[in-house]
């Protein structure tokens, strides 16, 4: 997929996020929108052997959304990739819907691991990477954590294990949007410097702009070529990216737009789409 196509797809993913949280009148738009470009890149450019008709294909690359509350973003990416109808995004969080508030691997085609309790997804991703090594499998494992999630102790247990066991088939992406529910991460309990921490845990570390597809391409290629170490990609992102009134606002971590705000959000995305050309 070209950069232009990726940009257009990312707008569709963002529309799906807004549809989902608006339909649910609940959910987490801020951290889904910050992650939307990375999720788009992963599902449309980076991950290999994906087959929406065979979601459990043995040799597929795997993705674990450790920041499970960004489920609207993951669902929007999966739906646009063809795993299930985009129309279903509107059922997010509704009683009886398979699109649960947090990802459920037994219900949603394409979800590789159930997540929601922070700090846990990365360990599951480590487990998948260990299995890959045991079986000499070619698949790679990707996991995305939030930056607030870096406050969870288990995340560092997993990082220590991954570094110690030289899991070079593992790539951890930190969605560094700088905000958690209670405010700026630096004010709540600063995890900075994030890159130095992962380096200290024996990761190969790459800092990028998490909204720049060419930087993503370079970073993910570098991760793939890095041997003997897992890679951590620290992606600087904007919380609520591309929605004018949500950008950089901790208040939009877990809040749904009303009708008026929904319309503005869609107009914002129209403008982004027009600007892409």
């Amino acid at each position, binding site marked *: 997929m070209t950069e232009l196509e990726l940009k257009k797809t990312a707008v569709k993913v963002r529309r799906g996020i807004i549809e989902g949280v608006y339909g649910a009148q609940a959910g987490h738009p801020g951290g889904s929108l910050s992650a939307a470009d990375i999720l788009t890149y992963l599902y449309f450019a980076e991950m290999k052997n994906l087959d929406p008709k065979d979601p459990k294909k043995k040799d597929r690359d795997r993705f674990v959304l450790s920041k499970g509350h960004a489920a609207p973003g993951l669902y929007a990416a999966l739906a646009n990739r063809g795993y299930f109808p985009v129309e279903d995004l509107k059922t997010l969080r509704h009683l009886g819907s398979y699109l649960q508030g947090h990802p459920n691997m037994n219900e949603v085609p394409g979800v590789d691991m159930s997540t929601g*309790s922070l700090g*846990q997804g990365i360990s*599951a991703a480590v487990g*998948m*990477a260990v299995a890959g090594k045991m079986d000499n499998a070619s698949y790679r494992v990707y996991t995305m954590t939030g930056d607030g999630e870096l406050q969870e102790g288990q995340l560092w247990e997993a990082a220590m*294990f991954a570094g110690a066991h030289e899991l070079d088939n593992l790539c951890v992406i930190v969605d560094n949007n700088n905000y958690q529910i209670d405010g700026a991460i630096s004010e709540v309990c600063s995890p900075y410097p994030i890159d130095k921490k992962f380096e200290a845990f024996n990761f190969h570390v790459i800092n990028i702009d998490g909204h720049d597809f060419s930087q993503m391409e370079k970073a993910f290629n570098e991760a793939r070529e890095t041997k003997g170490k897992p890679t951590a990609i620290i992606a600087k992102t904007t919380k609520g990216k591309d929605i004018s009134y949500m950008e950089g606002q901790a208040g939009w971590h877990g809040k749904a737009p009303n009708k008026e705000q929904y319309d503005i959000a869609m107009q914002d995305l129209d403008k982004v789409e027009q600007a892409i050309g």
Partner: protein
Amino acid sequence: MDIVKKATREGYGDALVKWADEFPDMVVLDADLAGSTKTGQFKKAHPERFVDCGVAEADMTGIAAGLATTGKIPVISSFAVFATGRNYDQIRNSVAYPRLNVKIGGTHAGVTVGEDGASHQALEDIALMRALPGMTVISPADYAESIVAVKAALEHNGPVYMRFGRAAVPVVTDKLPGYKFELGKGSIIKEGKDVSIFATGILVAAAIDAAEMLKDAGIDAEIINIATIKPLDRELVVNSARKTGMVVTAEEHSIIGGLGSAVCEALSEDAPTKVYRIGVRDEFGESGSAGDLIKKYGFDGQGVYETVRKFLGK
């Protein structure tokens, strides 16, 4: 008859090695306690299928979940207190909710961990695991039952908590005529008509001893081994309670949430019966030798005997 004494954790360790070839997808994980939990033998025999996670029970549980998504059968091991408590949220959200095929081996359960004291004595592990949807909970009575129970757990597709002890306890099940371990089934060790004693873990041998003494006191006790606490063999429990009209439960666990609770829940719905629960009364344990602690809590034949007589008023 010579009574052989062996710890159920020994059965766990031996079983993992014994069934390794039959379950090639089995991977054993430990959190720096391979010597104590007895998984060290598996590590020696199959190093390529063993993962030492270091002192990180939460991460170990998550790694096991990830392994299970690829078709492996991970078996995680630690002291029962850390294998169910330290990582409770990980078991709940990364194992039970996604229904992943992870086996949890908790050794050193109950007060008989001994000298380490209350911080290391799991007395609420059955309660924690029993409350999780889809979790199977087994608590073998002795070494021989541990061997077959581990196999049944490996054959079962879904999360299973397996509870083992540190102390050497009498091996009794291999001498029972017609005995066969079946997941979800209890087994009648001795039929009786005056009182039903439902026992699990090391209390099974104690109940068998007590039955002999009770006989001399004119009490005909029915002894039932409940090795699978969840799902409970409800039919067996209800039928026995209806027959005897008096029930005693016996476990090396808190009286809250364990076998006693499970039996009371079943009986209150289907056959209300007076029940006395032998276990630890809503308190933490303490340091001491396993033998002294067994005496203190009345977990030997004499203790069960006295409690049953008092309960029956005979």
